[in-house]
């Protein structure tokens, strides 16, 4: 497991995060909305270094647009990618069947990220038990197995779709 740095994150993040595990945090917004955010190792297709990312609103409320949330999450993801040989796997939450919307938001966030040129993002859709899932992998372009990871992830998803 990788270990992220609460201190390093709190030096740059607009919201103060509290570490709840090696690679998980909680933070509360100025509107009292509590988020859990982090990474959990995922060995679905690659045994080393893939971590599934999650961002969960633990409160019953949502209050408009708050750029400090995405900024805090960005700092956490940047700390994750201080580790060169990691892969971030992101599966859009299917709650309310709004996964396409969440995928668009994620891509907007990524494409407006000033350092996006340093990373590769690949997204694939799949049907599992009659639910459409959108899954993405994000990794540094200098990852030692960059091309193989993208290729294997593509095969993992697309060979299922073609099956």
């Amino acid at each position, binding site marked *: 497991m990788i270990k992220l740095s609460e201190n390093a994150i709190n030096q740059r993040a607009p919201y103060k995060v509290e570490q*709840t595990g090696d690679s*998980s945090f*909680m933070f509360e917004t100025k509107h009292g909305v*509590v988020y*859990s955010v*982090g990474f*959990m190792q*995922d*060995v*679905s*297709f*690659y*045994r*080393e270094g893939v971590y*599934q990312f*999650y961002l*969960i609103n*633990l*409160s*019953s409320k949502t209050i408009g647009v708050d750029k400090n949330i995405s900024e805090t999450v960005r700092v956490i993801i940047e700390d994750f990618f201080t580790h060169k040989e990691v892969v971030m*796997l992101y*599966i859009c*939450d299917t709650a309310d069947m709004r996964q396409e919307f969440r995928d668009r938001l994620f891509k907007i966030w990524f494409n407006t990220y000033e350092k996006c040129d340093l990373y590769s993002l690949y997204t694939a859709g*799949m049907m*599992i*038990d009659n*639910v459409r*899932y959108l*899954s993405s992998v994000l990794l540094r372009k200098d990852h030692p*197995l960059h091309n*193989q990871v993208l290729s*294997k992830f593509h095969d*993992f*998803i697309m*060979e*299922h779709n073609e*099956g």
Partner: protein
Amino acid sequence: MDDSVFVKFNSEEERLAALRKMVGMRKIFEARAREIYEKKYGVSVAQ
């Protein structure tokens, strides 16, 4: 290229099982996060 770090699937059933596990992890994240929140604040969060 060393392929040993990548999972090999011997059947579509194995692949589907891996995919189901992958997309099902969110429930684990949510359960853990709620547990941590409840321990910290002593109250349940909204489901």
